[in-house]
């Protein structure tokens, strides 16, 4: 018996056959989508791993310089030096479509193009280590931006892969077997009906013949 109740008629049988065909095609398409997503995802993961390592290393270096700077300068002076930034960053965001997943692409623009603008202080009262730290930080920031893009892409792709995988599995292990089962059930039922009709007809024929001619086997 199929799990869902179906009326064993020829019309339902035809409908089910159509749905099975669609489900098979959908399953194949989704499987292809999943495979391609997976390929892209693995590239992104590899890139992400590399970038994260780079960012973590770069930031460790920058923080080390900053620590040195903060030992040389008093905390108040350090804060004062960094309090009023001369630089500001504006971010642009557009979307790229990877296999119907919208992933962000960032572009950033600094207000001042002069790279020396990251130092918001006079050089007289601050130590060279602070300059060093900021330079390192500015360098690592570009990687950080790329990391943000790659990591978000990775998360969104993972989400989509999970969804696609569920759909593929649902089709493969639930929908398609159910349809097949129902189709088998209906065709068997139809066959049964047919043979019982045949038997009944034969019986009727016998009865009619017997009545008409008093004929007997």
């Amino acid at each position, binding site marked *: 018996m199929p799990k869902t109740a179906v009326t064993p008629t020829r019309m339902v049988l035809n409908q089910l056959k159509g749905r099975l065909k669609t489900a098979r095609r959908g399953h194949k398409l989704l499987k292809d989508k999943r495979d391609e997503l*997976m390929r892209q*995802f693995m590239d992104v*993961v590899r890139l*992400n*791993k590399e970038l*994260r390592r780079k*960012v*973590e290393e770069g*930031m*460790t270096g*920058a*923080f080390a310089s*900053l*620590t040195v700077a*903060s030992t040389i300068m008093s905390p108040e002076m*350090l*804060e004062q030096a*960094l*309090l009023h*930034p*001369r*630089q*500001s*960053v*504006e*971010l*642009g*965001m557009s*979307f790229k479509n990877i296999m119907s997943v*919208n*992933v*962000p692409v*960032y572009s*950033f623009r*600094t*207000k001042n193009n002069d790279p020396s603008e*990251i*130092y*918001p202080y006079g050089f007289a009262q601050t130590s060279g280590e602070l300059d060093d*730290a*900021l330079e390192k*930080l*500015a360098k690592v*920031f570009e990687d*950080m*931006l790329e*990391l*943000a*893009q790659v*990591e*978000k892409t*990775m*998360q*969104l*792709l*993972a*989400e989509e*892969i*999970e969804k696609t*995988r569920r759909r593929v599995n649902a089709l493969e292990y639930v929908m398609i077997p159910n349809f097949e089962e129902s189709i088998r059930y209906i065709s068997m039922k139809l066959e049964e009906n047919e043979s019982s009709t045949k038997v009944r007809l034969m019986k009727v024929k016998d009865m009619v013949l017997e009545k008409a001619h008093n004929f007997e086997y």
Partner: protein
Amino acid sequence: MLKIAVLGGRDTVMGFKALGLDVFPAGSAEEAKEAFRYLTKESEVEYAIIYVEENLARYLEHEISRYKDVPSPAIIFIPGREGPLGLGQSALKAAVEKAVGTDIL
């Protein structure tokens, strides 16, 4: 115009201020939660990227997981002064696990 925010300890975010990012220093779990809520809900300007220091991210796990499947904002862990805690790595692992079903790294 979109902006970039850095959420972390006072010492960590200081340097990023000079680069022209918007910084939100937070010392405790409550402060971090407050700042995060401001960044994602109340703020007038839209923040497309929020960098969160790893040792604060621990307190924000629940909030952050809500933004994992939306295109914006991107919430990225950055190591703090003490060096990487491995939270960024585990985020990567979690994504792989989600996609593949097992940890293949």
